[in-house]
């Protein structure tokens, strides 16, 4: 029991500075960086639109604009708990599938912007939920090795679709 108390005190002594350093210094700076990257995505999409890059895929531009604007609005507080808690109906999931297909079938520069947006918003979600990262990384590594890639990929895609559905339902 003395050892348990000793470990608790050491964890507290090291954890408190780490906690403040992460939540009050590193995370705000990281989120600012990610916000700049989202601005860059949006600017790239707009410049591409001006140079007629969306001529053959006109439906993709409003989607990219919407994704970027929503992400910029919620990048500070969006986390995995928010996205998992929100109940998503089947219609929204189908809408997400349709929109993702529109972007997937568009040209390479549009897809590049979309991928950059995706990586950025995933980074923001993970930065806002470090606890999930600590808990889920070992589980994820185990599931990849135990269930192998195809099944894990299917599960992950389903989770991403649900999370994107929750993202759709959130007010801008």
């Amino acid at each position: 029991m003395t050892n348990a108390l000793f470990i608790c005190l050491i964890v507290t002594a090291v954890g408190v500075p780490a906690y403040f350093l992460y939540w009050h210094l590193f995370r705000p700076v990281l989120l600012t960086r990610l916000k700049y990257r989202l601005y860059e995505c949006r600017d790239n999409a707009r410049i591409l639109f001006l140079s007629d890059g969306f001529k053959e895929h006109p439906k993709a531009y409003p989607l990219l604009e919407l994704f970027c604007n929503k992400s910029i609005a919620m990048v500070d507080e969006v986390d995995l708990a928010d996205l998992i808690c929100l109940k998503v109906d089947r219609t929204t999931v189908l809408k997400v599938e349709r929109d993702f297909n529109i972007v997937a079938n568009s040209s390479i520069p549009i897809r590049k912007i979309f991928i950059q947006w995706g990586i950025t918003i995933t980074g923001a979600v993970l930065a806002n939920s470090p606890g999930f990262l600590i808990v889920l990384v070992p589980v994820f590594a185990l599931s990849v090795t135990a269930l192998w890639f195809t099944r894990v990929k299917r599960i992950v895609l389903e989770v991403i679709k649900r999370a994107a559905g929750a993202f759709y339902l959130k007010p801008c």
Partner: protein
Amino acid sequence: METPEGGSHPTGWERLIAAIERIGLKSLATGNFVWFVVLIIGGGCVWKLDTGDLKEVLLKVFATYGWLGYVVAGVAIFIAVRVLRWRERFYQQEMGRISEVRNQLVQAKIEFPIQSSVEKREEK
């Protein structure tokens, strides 16, 4: 009791469970559950240990390993300085990017297709 949409209102018990579920998920997401665990284990130990053992543990932590505080503080300051420098660097990069975009737009004499809400209001 039914809602206007035809569903039933959640009872107090259901709302309490939903609130606990949300707090749990939030603490899991932020990593704050670690503090709850430390608090419960530490509190339990303090409650159960006798005074002599408690004194021994506190002496060990504060006297024997107290110097580690300087190391932690040093690392914290080092990380803080690096993070602030990084922020300054990417801020400069962003300013450069913005001026580049502006130059592109001015040279091409074109405007963004999206109007701001202020511009829309002015047009009306």
